[in-house]
């Protein structure tokens, strides 16, 4: 396949227009969509995450790159679906009941999408039943929760309890995050994983589902 390093660059710079152009050109030239994703797009988002971690990038750059990534994804995902379904796993995510902070959750979502995950966003102020409903009879997926208030973080425990009572706790992996959450808290409430930031959330999700890291 010819070199579409421009696509990597466009996403890294957050240039949605260029990302769209290069993707369209690549597809017209018969490029393999899966390869575009694995060779350029996901590595670009991984690099965005790395730069964010070492404060070369800030949240605006993250959002802008995320948008460029989405633009390219929209072009290739119909083709990927034809080729055989979701690639990375699926994540059901929401900010827990009583809490409407969603900036961190939305960043986690855009990084997860950047990492190839399918994401179902339940929004904010999400009661336990809605998490349970959303899981339904699916398995091997992730339930992710966000909380920014010390008065709402305890509700994560309720959600895990509800999953257990519905008999579906073993079918899913639970990951949690948000400013007041710590690894210790995550362990205490019986979550499977915690990450302190959005780029870490992608690696964590991959590990929880036993997927190889692309980095």
């Amino acid at each position, binding site marked *: 396949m010819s070199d579409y390093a421009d696509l990597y660059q466009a996403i890294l710079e957050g240039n949605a227009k260029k990302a769209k152009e290069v993707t369209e050109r690549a597809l017209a030239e018969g490029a393999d969509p899966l390869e575009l994703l694995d060779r350029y797009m996901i590595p670009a988002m991984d690099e965005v995450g790395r730069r964010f971690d070492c*404060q070369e990038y*800030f949240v*605006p750059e993250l*959002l*802008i790159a995320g948008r460029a990534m989405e633009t390219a994804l929209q072009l290739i995902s119909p083709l990927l679906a034809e080729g055989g379904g979701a690639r990375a796993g699926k994540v059901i995510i929401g900010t827990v009941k009583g809490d*409407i902070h969603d*900036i961190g959750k939305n*960043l986690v979502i855009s990084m997860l999408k950047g990492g190839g995950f399918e994401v179902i966003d339940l*929004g904010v102020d999400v009661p336990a039943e809605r998490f349970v409903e959303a899981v339904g009879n699916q398995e091997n997926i992730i339930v992710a929760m966000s909380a920014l*208030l010390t008065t709402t973080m305890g509700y994560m425990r309720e959600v895990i309890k509800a999953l257990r009572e519905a008999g579906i706790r073993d079918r899913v992996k639970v990951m949690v995050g948000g400013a007041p959450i710590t690894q210790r808290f995550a362990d205490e409430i019986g979550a499977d994983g915690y990450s302190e930031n959005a780029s870490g959330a992608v690696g964590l999700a991959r590990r929880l589902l036993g997927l190889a890291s692309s980095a």
Partner: protein
Amino acid sequence: MVRQFRQLTIIGESINDSVPSTHQLLESGNLQALVELACKQAEEGADYIDVNVGARAPELMAELVRRIQEVLDRPLVIDSPDIQIAEAGLRAYDPARAGGQKPILNSISLGRIEMLRLLAIQPCKVVLLVSEHVVDGRTSLCTTAEDSYRAAQKLVELVRETGFSLSNDDLIIDPGLTPLATDTGGHLNRVLQTFVRVREDQDLAGVHFVVGLSNLTVMLPSKRADGSPVKGPLQNAFLTKAVPLGLDMIVASTSRRYSLLPAEHPAVRCLEQCIANPGLAAVLAVRDFYKSGGSL
């Protein structure tokens, strides 16, 4: 601190569990250092001192309020979304030690109306947070100024129904300032237009407005490549837009200088772009502001 705005009441923000250095003091139970922090902010010009102890024992809130009031005559803001902690703070507050001034309760919102009962404890001023409303039983973020204005009307109505005789002068409306770094939803416009809408309503004449000014610039770098500051100018640019619309109180750092900026200042230009082009374009304008290392 140089007070450029005589009409702007400053609430010192530093005693807050989400400030890392304060978190340490709270963790180690160093009340003396927290009292000193209150005094330092008062010296730097704070009209009120905010007191937020995070998720800790209500008794700690009470104790801190008492200890601060032993040495300082400034009124306090009792700041907690937890009703028990807020209650403990209000019960401990003694207006006589603050020259008769009432405390401010921060805050009541439509998602937390059970806190209304705290107004019975003693005469106080109250922050009404109007960034959220309840739709079909679920709390969500207001997306338009109209949503926020309605939330304000509703909260004022609920406060009046309690019969605890708060006047409009006791009511402080907080539209909920959200960070520029992620404002793809036009929240800057929502906030500014909320001031306009509330001021048009005669029934709300004389209410005050407050914002948490630092919220505006969270997640932004503190300096540009050339070393010039990012956050201070953007906060001042916000004041330049909001004070003429009626903003008269800020929860803010007492170590910054606040001033109105000239219309051609790059930070004002940046905010004007955010106002004119809400959406991802606004976030791009903010990025361009801190990426262009220009002279200020």
